[in-house]
């Protein structure tokens, strides 16, 4: 889960000061200014800002949102997401595969064929066996979400454990381009797994070691060049792309200079001043910039929904939250509008685990309290009294970054108000998720946020599914083991993505049950800023609900 946790904290002052000095000395990376004038030798460029550097630009290693945002247009896999705003952007379309797969053998055998005449960005032809190599490489390089592969593809676990030299469940034919993948059991979200950049094809002669500074060739509109670790990199238009002509994937007009700028204030200033073209959507605008955006940049600023949920987990394995009334009290007392303000407005209050827009998000009212209200402390106090847990000590965990630290302060204060004795344990964000996802830590209550791996309800349900409890890297932080949820998820997880709309009512029923059991106290869903420079066609820039702004749709006015 931590892999997709997005940092919201602005840079500490010291880092900001250093960044400012470095920038003043003209050493702040080689991204260049956002002037982006068309040159005689190539297309115009746009400067995109990132608040933090991608963890890796190697597709089979990168796991953070900044990494996937950069690589999803460089390393296409068999399938990808439609380049569209809103829920249309969650639809899967064939990318390097010629069509959507044929699923047979009780939904465990996926068969498809590669498009003809594909080439990597270095000109080498694409072979079906490159797909096997990409999956094997992701496993060997310990990609953070490799369990999606090892748990579902026949023979992938044996390959991971070095008991096999290849993955027996993947069969390819380089001559015909046919690819078949055998799953251990039906898994409806498997096409989403194939749409990860980590499943993007790379040549079979790519070294079996991470290549973050010299990423391998891929098939996609862009190729990555000139990587300056931690500072900048460039996405140039793939010279072979025009030949591929994959329907649904735009041909880019601008090369992209990506520059890391950790100071959010400077980031915003650079976009307002036209020195850069796109603000990092992972970082909320600081208050001053937010006011400036609303005042001066109304036509190039908007707030976009992202599939993310922010919540406090309530550990049901120990008092007081092994008591339903105690958990209900917490949810009743939540002042969600306060969290919205603490997040500078970038949080939409809500009570369900699944974010709005995702199939399964109920339209019915919340079982406990109104998300728009400031919380019913009196009722919560009564519930705490009735539960017999009043006066118990509760330790609230949280990461020491804005606004999560403030979330924890507010939550602890609320626990005090309803009758508990709350203490806070706010620790470094770099160690926080490692600590609370370790069951031995025994975290009683804590803040967490989860950004989807892919747009499927099953991805969010690992947060309260007892089958996902594990000693380290645990996803079910509440340690909830509810047969209704565990069995429900097991059944619904088998449905292919194409049948999700028909299963919406079942997911909604599960959502209502989960909300009534209050295993997690959901506070809301994060939203993201979309801010561009004046010269960019703001309306034409697609904001994918999965990977954020689609750089292939960046164009000048």
């Amino acid at each position: 889960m931590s892999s997709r946790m997005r940092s919201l904290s602005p840079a500490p002052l010291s880092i900001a000061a250093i960044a400012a000095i470095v920038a003043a000395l003209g050493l702040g990376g080689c991204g260049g200014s956002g002037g982006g004038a068309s040159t005689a030798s190539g297309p115009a460029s746009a400067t995109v800002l990132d608040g933090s550097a991608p963890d890796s630009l190697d597709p089979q290693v990168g796991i953070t949102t900044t990494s996937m945002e950069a690589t999803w247009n460089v390393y296409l896999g068999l399938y990808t997401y439609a380049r569209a705003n809103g829920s249309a952007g969650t639809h899967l379309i064939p990318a390097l595969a010629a069509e959507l797969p044929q699923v047979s053998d009780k939904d465990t055998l996926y068969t498809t064929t590669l498009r003809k005449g594909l080439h990597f960005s270095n000109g080498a032809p694409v072979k079906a066996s490159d797909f096997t190599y990409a999956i094997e490489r992701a496993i060997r390089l310990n990609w953070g979400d490799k369990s999606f592969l090892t748990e579902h593809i026949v023979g992938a676990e044996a390959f991971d454990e070095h008991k096999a030299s290849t993955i027996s469940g993947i069969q390819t034919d380089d001559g015909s381009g046919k690819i078949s993948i055998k799953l251990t059991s039906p898994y409806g979200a498997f096409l989403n797994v194939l749409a990860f950049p980590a499943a993007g094809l790379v040549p079979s002669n790519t070294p079996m070691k991470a290549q973050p500074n010299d990423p391998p060739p891929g098939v996609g509109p862009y190729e990555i060049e000139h990587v300056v670790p931690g500072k900048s990199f460039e996405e140039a238009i793939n010279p072979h792309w025009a030949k591929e002509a994959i329907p649904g994937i735009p041909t880019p007009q601008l090369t992209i200079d990506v520059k890391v700028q950790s100071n959010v204030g400077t980031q915003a200033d650079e976009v307002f001043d036209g020195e850069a073209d796109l603000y990092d959507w992972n970082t909320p605008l600081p208050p001053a910039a937010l006011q400036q955006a609303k005042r001066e940049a109304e036509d190039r600023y908007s707030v976009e929904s992202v599939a993310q949920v922010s919540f406090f987990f309530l550990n049901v394995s120990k008092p007081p939250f092994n008591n339903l009334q105690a958990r209900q009290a917490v949810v009743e007392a939540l002042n969600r509008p306060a969290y919205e303000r603490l997040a500078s407005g970038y949080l939409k209050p809500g009570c369900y685990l699944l974010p709005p827009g995702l199939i399964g998000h109920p339209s019915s009212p919340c079982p406990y309290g109104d998300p728009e209200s400031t919380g019913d402390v009196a009722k919560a106090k009564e519930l705490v009294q009735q539960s017999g847990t009043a006066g118990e000590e509760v330790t609230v965990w949280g990461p020491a970054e804005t606004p999560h630290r403030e979330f924890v302060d507010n939550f602890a204060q609320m626990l005090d108000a309803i009758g508990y004795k709350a203490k806070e344990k706010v620790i470094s964000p770099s160690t926080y998720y490692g600590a609370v996802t370790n069951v031995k830590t025994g975290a009683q209550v804590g803040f967490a946020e989860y950004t989807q791996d892919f747009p499927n309800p099953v991805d969010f349900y690992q947060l309260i599914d007892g089958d996902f409890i594990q000693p380290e890297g645990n996803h079910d932080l509440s340690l909830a083991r509810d047969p209704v949820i565990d069995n429900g998820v097991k059944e619904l997880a088998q449905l292919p993505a194409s049948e999700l709309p028909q299963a919406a009512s079942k997911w909604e029923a599960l959502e209502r049950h989960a909300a009534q059991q209050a295993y997690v106290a959901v506070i809301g869903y994060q939203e993201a800023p979309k801010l561009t420079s004046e010269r960019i066609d703001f309306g034409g820039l697609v904001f994918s609900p999965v990977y954020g702004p689609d750089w292939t749709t960046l164009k000048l006015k």
Partner: protein
Amino acid sequence: MDARAPSLSAPIPRRSAWRLLLAEPTAIGAGCVLVLIVVLCLLAPVYAKDIAHTGPDATHVTETISLGGHPHDVVSPTGVPTGPTWHSRFLLGADKTGRDVAVRLLYGGRNSLEIAALATLITMVLAIALALLAGWFGGFLDTLICRLMDLIWSYPVLLLGVALGVTLAIDGIDLGFVTLHGGSLLLPALIIGVVYIPYMGRPLRARVLELRRSEFVDAALQQGLNGGRVALSEILPNLTSNVVVFAPLLLANAILLEAGLSFLGAGVQAPAPSWGTMISEGTQLMPEAIHLVLAPGLMLLAAVVAANLLGDTLRDLLDPRSRRRRVRASARGLTLAPLELPPPEAGPMPPAEPAR
């Protein structure tokens, strides 16, 4: 030279030192500022309960206050807290979670000063004990203690403090006979107290070595007194003036280090306030809510400058070399430049006097 002025080569009797101190307007001013800050911080609960009507941790994010007859958000919808109201509620404004900055400033001051005072005490006790052991017994024990102090001294104080603070912030420390939880104020006090031991311990050890060779110590030993008793009755009292000079300087450094550690998240743990944590939280909202940094910053500045001025004046009065410089400068009609803190081995060394 005034006939009543104490001899430069002789120790200053304590009463004379006190009179000299009272004659120094700088020292008086600095002392008054320190006392004022301490008294204000001690009155934090009274201020919180009877004037501000809110606690240091109470959040008021979605509440409104009346300013000039108009309702005003404590925290705006975009997350900007109100600035100083100059009224009893939110006198110095609110922070991002709608907490009263003035209340937290006073409670934070209590925490900062408590930690600094405790850390100074820990440093003094341990430094004196180690200096006596090393200087009196010498040999292997001296070497061991000196190398231990070198080891601590070789790490930058702030880095060492951060490393210890971050490590201990999660699980605290369990020494068997004493357990400190991660959020305990004793933890930063202990960390600061330990990292400053060489700062005081090394000059004190040098002083003990010097005293060890004094005639009055030889005389005491020849009278048949045992070594431990001589160390406590003859050496220890002669360290008093050194310790008195070091105390306010250590206090100032401890206040600063506590603020630094808390700023970096390795000192006082949330939600407890300290000036360092308040500045850290405030930097997130610069420049929209500059009061969040200014208020604790000015308090920190006042406390540290006052403690340093007091320490410098004390050193000038009690250190004969400083006094000699002062007299020469006065004779030439010069103004003394501010003195640098002594390096570890060159602490203030008033001449020895036999214990009376």
